[in-house]
């Protein structure tokens, strides 16, 4: 039988606010345990939550970016369950009235564009962390993360393969970073994914029973976990078994999922509106103000790069995957007197390769956009050749000098003086009569030998176009 996979993702995005969603404590990562949790985060008796407006603003920015309905009225609810790292015994979340309603995100898989529906996105607070290691059989509780704002983004069950799921996740990851609402750091848990996976016979309308795979925190693991789960479910059904609705945990070491709890064992969260918080009312003015400051989205930027700068699909895609990279490109272009294509090639080529090798992000680049622009200007005005430019680039990477300083100091200026080039050409022709004969008898390949000899003699500084032109004339005699 042929099977079809149905996947929906729930992604927890940690919002990049300075302070927590309901308290003034810092959200910075990596502090000593329990040093960033105030009385409110600890759930001490008598304390009350106060909503961080910045978190609301970020949720609305996201909603606008996915063209979603922004709820004029949304409500915080208490999700009740006991766990040691959940200080109040309930999590403040949203249930019946989420802040962001139906929206969508377009993904591309193997050149085909597909629209993935987003059911909703709601605001909630994160829990703390239980630390099971190094407490001699006891559990340590770190509440630094408790109260960190999360935006839970729930997709429709619109994905049909692990590849689509990963493409959606990547697209979303790119978007939230673009919008500046999430740092996207997956190691630190800023972007976490739960996947709902089911299979059904191809052509069947009704969904199969789904399993939810919890907390898969890398793109690689999402793909592996989903593929593993698909195989498990198909094998189960084909052997006469039935998929049960349950929550499963992905074990990246063993590359398998295993059952955490069944539907029957699931908590009854007893949601009800939180009486400590008023409903969130979002008016037109608030939305208009956010809309006015909404950054250009990746899709729009890519299109603009293609039409305004005449970049090809590949370069435009690479340059717009992150906002800092796109900004770097545009800043470099503006500061240099070069063609967009040349600029794009250098950034996606040599610079990206060097950054990758060093493990740097564009924001860590040792070559500022001004210094790269200086290099590009000198390539464009023929001061140096592309080949020499690579040498200059190496020095730019290692020093703080400008391209002009490097060119001057190392004497790398390209020779365009035809007189100087002619003298060299004449000498080479005189010294290599055999090759001249070969060329003249129709062996065109020998031409490259002459170019090489001239360049070698001139230490690569001769203008290649000029060399070609003069050589041709002289060799033809």
């Amino acid at each position, binding site marked *: 039988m042929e099977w079809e996979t149905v996947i929906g993702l729930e992604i927890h995005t940690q919002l990049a606010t300075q302070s927590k969603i309901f308290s003034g404590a810092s959200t910075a990562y990596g502090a000593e345990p329990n040093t960033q949790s105030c009385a409110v985060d600890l*759930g*001490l008796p*008598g304390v009350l939550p106060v909503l961080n407006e910045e978190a609301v603003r970020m949720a609305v920015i996201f909603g606008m970016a996915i063209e979603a309905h922004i709820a004029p009225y949304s409500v915080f609810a208490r999700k009740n369950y006991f766990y040691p790292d959940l200080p109040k015994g309930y999590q403040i979340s949203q249930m019946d009235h989420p802040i962001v309603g139906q929206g969508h995100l377009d993904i591309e898989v193997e050149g085909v564009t597909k629209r993935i529906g987003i059911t909703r996105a709601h605001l909630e607070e994160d829990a703390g962390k239980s630390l099971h290691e190094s407490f001699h059989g006891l559990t340590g509780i770190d509440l630094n993360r408790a109260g960190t704002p999360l935006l839970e983004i729930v997709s429709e069950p619109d994905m049909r393969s692990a590849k689509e799921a990963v493409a959606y996740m990547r697209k979303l990851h790119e978007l939230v970073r673009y919008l500046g609402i999430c740092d996207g750091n997956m190691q630190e848990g800023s972007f976490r994914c739960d996947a709902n996976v089911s299979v059904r016979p191809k052509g069947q309308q009704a969904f199969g029973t789904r399993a939810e795979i919890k907390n898969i925190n890398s793109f690689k693991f999402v793909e592996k976990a989903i593929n593993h789960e698909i195989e498990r479910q198909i094998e189960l059904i084909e052997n006469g078994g039935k998929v049960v609705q349950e929550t499963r945990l992905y074990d990246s070491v063993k590359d398998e999922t295993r059952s955490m709890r069944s539907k029957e064992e699931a908590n009854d969260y007893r949601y009800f509106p939180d009486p400590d918080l008023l409903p969130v009312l979002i008016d037109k003015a608030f939305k208009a103000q956010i809309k006015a400051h909404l950054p250009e989205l990746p899709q729009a930027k890519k299109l603009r790069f293609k039409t305004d700068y005449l970049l090809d699909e590949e370069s435009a895609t690479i340059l717009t995957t992150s906002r800092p990279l796109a900004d770097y490109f545009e800043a470099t272009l503006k500061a240099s007197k070069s063609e967009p294509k040349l600029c794009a090639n250098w950034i996606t080529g040599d610079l990206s390769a060097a950054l990758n090798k060093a493990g740097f992000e564009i924001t860590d680049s040792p070559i500022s956009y001004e210094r790269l622009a200086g290099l590009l200007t000198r390539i464009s005005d023929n001061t140096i050749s592309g080949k020499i430019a690579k040498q200059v680039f190496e020095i730019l990477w290692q020093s703080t000098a400008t391209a002009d300083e490097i060119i001057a100091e190392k004497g790398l200026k390209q020779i365009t003086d035809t007189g100087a080039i002619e003298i060299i050409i004449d000498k080479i022709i005189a010294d290599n009569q055999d090759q001249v004969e070969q060329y003249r008898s129709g062996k065109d390949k020998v031409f490259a030998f002459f170019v090489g000899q001239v360049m070698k003699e001139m230490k690569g500084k001769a203008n290649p176009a000029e060399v070609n032109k003069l050589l041709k004339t002289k060799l033809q005699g």
Partner: protein
Amino acid sequence: MHTKSLTELAQGLRSGEFSSVELTQHFLKRIKQYHDLNTYITVTEEIALQNAIAADARLASGQGAALTGIPMAQKDIFCTLDIKTSCGSKMLDNFIAPYNATVVEKFNQAGAVLLGKLNMDEFAMGSSNETSYYGAVKNPWNINTVPGGSSGGSGAAVASRLASCATGTDTGGSIRQPAAHCGITGLKPTYGRVSRYGMIAYASSLDQGGPMARSAEDAAILLQTMAGFDPKDSTSVDLSVPNYSAGLNNSLAGLKIGLPKEFFSNDLNSDMAAKLETAINEYRKLGAEIIEISMPNLRLAIPAYYVIAPAECSANLSRFDGVRFGYRCKNPVDLTDLYTRSRGEGFGKEVKRRILMGTYALSTGYYDAYYVKAQKIRRLISDDFKNALTEVDVIMGPVTPTPAFGIGEKIADPIEMYLSDIYTIAINLAGLPALSIPAGFINDLPVGLQIIGNYFTEDRLLNIAHQYQQVTDWHQHTPKGFE
């Protein structure tokens, strides 16, 4: 000294008749002397004297406020920095808050002297003060009767002059009912008028702190200190605070008083009805017009309240889990054991009953039938009040069905106990302000008159109460043996 009003005490402090230290020592002595009433959970003698010394210095420099140097006490539901805040529970017997409730902070800034923390029903759940882990409080008017609850310690302490005044909190009648049983004046302000920050939550959408004092005049001074917007409490209302003392002497001519027929049905004890009638007659004499009104949904208040309040409490009390603070059971074997025994041993019977009721009401399959329905009833009750208050300025009625009942009389019958609040609960559901003032005695036990006003009309309520207290002296009676 202990018989003086807050205004008289403030004058005495300024004229040099007595110092705050002397006044404080006097109250501390009385607290020791009448220890058997069990009004205080914690007496903060050292802090009180430090406060008094600071207050005397402040008064000497002419910087004093209305409450500077005046010894008062806080219900033990308000968190106090470095002082035990038990909320009347074994669960918090070891809890010392690292912060002050906003209300406490305001009293501190006013320079008031903190005598201690007052006894109360456990987590404010009770109408008799018998659910306290620290034992029942005795009513000074008759030590075999209850002072009411949950602010029973506050009611009894003010009535017996073990504090010049006190704070209370009111979720379903917990200020007004003990005020009525103890013969004092208690005001539950409009929901949102007084900050709830640092006030341990029972039912968040109903809880409201307020003053418990000997007279409306004193209550006005207290409310002046307590009221106001607090950015730490999202449900507090950002509205300017009027001068509550300024309008106390306004005339009541033309005041329209509504009497809901549902409050004066045959269910009301005839002695109680007679006392209320006498009180209302006084208002007639003061120029008020009496109008009979009807609020058909009032009868639904108790069932709606006993869904909403337990539902909220079931979540509010989840934080008491033995993990971070409060009571923890001995030698837990695992997490479930830690939770069940800490909560099972730390909470009293009534608290557990309400947590169970609330958990049930919020469960899948019951939520719509209980919680959602109760919220709809709440809306209907609010509408009843809103409609009534377009016809009349205030609504009057009983505070309690009977005067104070005997200790032990109702504690075994929760339904009977819950019905003690039948006249007060609807006001919390509507979020309206209401006060209780002494209006006579039945068998030497005080009777309260309830006055309910429109949102944020505490000034008018205090004015109406004060005018009554100018022509009657019920509020000046002192229980025998406590003169």
